[in-house]
């Protein structure tokens, strides 16, 4: 698998939101904890819908949570 082109601040944001657990975030956005783990470790770039749901959970604009790094 290549390097994921989307990085994120989810771990930091969870910490800033009363140390929210991965399980709690997963339940809020309607996915499994493993999916949150994969996104945090940048092994998986979430769909646009899930990215918006995560950003909305943290009350942040999308660009504050996710950053796109074009290849090359």
């Amino acid at each position, binding site marked *: 698998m290549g390097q994921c082109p989307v990085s994120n601040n989810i771990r930091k944001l969870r910490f800033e939101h009363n140390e929210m657990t991965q399980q709690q975030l997963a339940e809020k956005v309607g996915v499994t904890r*493993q999916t949150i783990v994969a996104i945090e470790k940048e092994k998986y770039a979430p769909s646009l819908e899930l990215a918006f749901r995560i950003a909305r959970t943290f009350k942040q604009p999308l660009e504050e949570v996710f950053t796109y790094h074009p290849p090359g």
Partner: protein
Amino acid sequence: MALFTLLLFAIYYKLVLDFYAKGTYTTTEEFQFWGLAILLVIPGLFEVRRFLYFIYSALYSLITQRREDDFMTGTALQDEYNRLIKAKALRNFYHAFMGSFVLAMGVLSWGGSPLIMFNILLFGVLIAHITYHLSEFYYLRKGV
């Protein structure tokens, strides 16, 4: 999971060979026999896998007093990451099975017996299932 599939297949294959050895078949009956043997093994291995996950899930809940995450069980929540992994694993399953199918047809066209052809197909199903399990494991570890 792949090891369990192997074990289960070995038991199943032994049963199939025993049944095959007991009977005397006309060509049509032989085709029916092997056709049924292959038809049973494809859903059979998937169903056993689901059953195993169910047992695992129940044991996990019992021991940890927590609900299992149901990530790969296919019994509850199916999110986008899970679905993508399953789709890629299924694609690999399909490629492995098609490879064995082409090989089986090749053997048949070179004058191999139907017995060899059906055995290649049966083992093709096994290899495809193992490919499926290993793919799931790989994509879970490495990401998609």
